[in-house]
């Protein structure tokens, strides 16, 4: 095919530009190692052997990093406290684009265990739980279902997600895309609430990447098709360098941290 020829031509001209290939000395094991390095081992060890004191320290660093980013952190003692926090936010905040209050949340065990549906229903506030698209659906039906979910997410003023990890150093929430856990729940609503367990807090990007590269539990999916690192609400300083929160993504972001 024409594109394939083009590709060969492209890569050949690249190789010509690179000059005579020092093939023997290409550092393949360095470019794409098959075993974790000593540094990787150290990082993996740090994650798995973290003491309670060190976890406390991570939480402290997370709070310190979050404050200047306007990422609001609430360490809650249990599920009931988390529920109360969410309900408080629902009561306090109002929809940015007008209309009724609606919420959307990932269908995730942790979120389901908050039992939000019932108290919200009492106030007449709908809570939409997202769902994977059934692979058995015909393409048109699947497209319809997607459009329906999109409309609900866009109409919600609060979106609730969990996270795969959380990074203390940069106050970053790590979301890996999966069926039933749409990315736009953390993007289209004006307020994003993320729930994590204390044990999901890592020190930094280095630890995250070491896990993604070498830990069997995460390695298979690797980076997956989309990994989002979110560090606070959306912001811009494009008009006379004045900082404004809520450029395109959520204006406010809350991170609720539950005990393990």
């Amino acid at each position: 095919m024409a594109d394939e020829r083009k590709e060969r031509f492209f890569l050949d001209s690249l190789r010509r530009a690179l000059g005579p290939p020092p093939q023997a000395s290409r550092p393949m094991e360095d470019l794409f190692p098959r075993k974790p390095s000593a540094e990787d081992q150290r990082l993996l060890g740090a994650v798995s052997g973290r003491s309670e004191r060190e976890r406390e320290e991570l939480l402290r660093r997370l709070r310190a990093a979050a404050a200047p980013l306007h990422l609001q952190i609430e360490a809650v003692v249990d599920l009931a406290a988390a529920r109360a926090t969410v309900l408080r936010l629902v009561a306090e905040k109002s929809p940015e684009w007008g209309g009724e209050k609606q919420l959307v949340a990932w269908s995730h065990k942790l979120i389901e265990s908050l039992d939000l549906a019932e108290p919200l229903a009492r106030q007449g506030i709908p809570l939409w739980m997202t769902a994977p698209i059934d692979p058995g659906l015909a393409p048109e039906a699947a497209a319809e279902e997607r459009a329906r979910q999109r409309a609900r997410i866009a109409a919600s003023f609060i979106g609730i997600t969990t996270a795969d990890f959380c990074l203390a150093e940069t106050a970053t929430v790590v979301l890996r895309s999966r069926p039933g856990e749409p990315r736009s729940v953390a993007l289209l609503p004006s307020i994003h609430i993320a729930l994590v367990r204390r044990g999901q807090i890592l020190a930094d990007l280095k630890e995250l990447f070491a896990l993604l590269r070498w830990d069997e539990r995460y390695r298979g999916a690797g980076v997956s098709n989309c990994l989002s690192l979110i560090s606070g609400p959306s912001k811009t300083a494009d008009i006379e360098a004045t900082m404004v929160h809520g450029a395109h993504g959520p204006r406010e972001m809350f991170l609720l941290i539950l005990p393990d």
Partner: protein
Amino acid sequence: MSAVRTERYVEESRRGIADPVLRRALSGLQERFGRGTAEAYRRLPEGPGLRQTAHAIREKAIANLDLLLERLAARIRANGGEVFFAATGEEAVSYCAGIARRRGVKLAVKGKSMVTEEIGLNSVLAAQGVEVVETDLGEYIIQLAGESPSHIIAPAIHKTRNEVADLFARKLGIPYTTDPPRLTQAARRALREKFLAADMGISGVNLACAETGHISTVSNEGNIRMATTLPPVHVAFMGLERIVARLDEYEIILRLLCRGASVQDIGTYVSLIGGPRRPGESDGPEEFHLVVVDNGRSRLLADPRFREMLCCIRCAACLNVCPVYGRIGGHAYGFAYSGPVGAVVTPLLTGVQRGRDLCRGETLCGACKDACSMDIDLPRMLLELRAILAAGDATWGVKPEGGLERNVWRIWAGLVSHPGLYERLLRAGAVLQGLLPRGVAGWIRRLPPPLSGWTQSRDFPPLAKAPFRSRWARRRREVGRG
């Protein structure tokens, strides 16, 4: 390729200098970011030496580009994405235009991407009836105003809030306000509609990783995440050099990118994207295309003098410290890339001869090298470009400089290697300068061409009555006598 106006450097720089609003904005930007970046490098846990580590990572990646790109492409394809290798800007643009035609795209939303500025994507898509909306707030402002970006990271730095207020009142039909939060809100509302309606999302690539097979985008606003999540097609453009081998290397470059670009530890949204949405996922694009663009980059790769430039990640840290950029602004550089990075890369991509004022119009102060997140020796490459312009260079299509300038330097070289002659000329000069008009303290008010540029705003020092060489001789005689 988008329009190249590098020949107008002198003219356009004059315009920038004469614009007090621009000057104020630029000095504010440089004050905030210029100093902040250096401080951010110092605060790195590894210390500022991490820039050298990053440089080595980038050099290794560049030296193995073929392997890295093959690996990246294989991974993305295995994940269901498409990869297209475009030798020229035209090929890249027409590939994207082809997708737009096939899918009947009416509206495309774009995240900030310098390479699409470089290849002139927007105008081609527009010509086939696609509405292309820039979604970075700064880019959106200048698109509404019908202008081009003047800074890689802060494209609308040259616009005041009053100008934005006028613009939004006219184009978005909102009540006139100069309040940045309200203006931002207006753009947020208008662009949200576009995101939700778009048929295609277009982004650049800050950095790709071969090992994992992903590209990545960084933004604070979330616009790129919108553009890469909501529309059914995502087309990402990357210069062929924007890649590293491993994820741990990616981490180092990412941290430096965020510090260099905006003195942040990390951008608000970093997306690592390896392909289209998976079965069962309800959002994310159903088609993902990566367009890898050469457009002259392999010529840099082939020239050992300029290969280093491919280490650049377009963080714009060099702009934020450059005294020349700080006075003339981005438009003077006449192409997508401005500041020190533009002064080197634009002539190499668009013609050294026509870009000669970009190569020569800097002071070589070296601030850019110290600020560069990838520790790139930009002054060295400016010197190489000047050498090419002076002596000519077939590979870059430059003829040797002729005429007056060359002769002046030849004569100079003769003089400085013949001290006797040199000394006589010095003495003659001390006498002849008597003919020139003087200001205070004997300083010269006006010099004849070709030196008249100096005295445009400055006096010129008079030659000392006796140069040091004769004073020394006198001194020795006296000491000898005494």
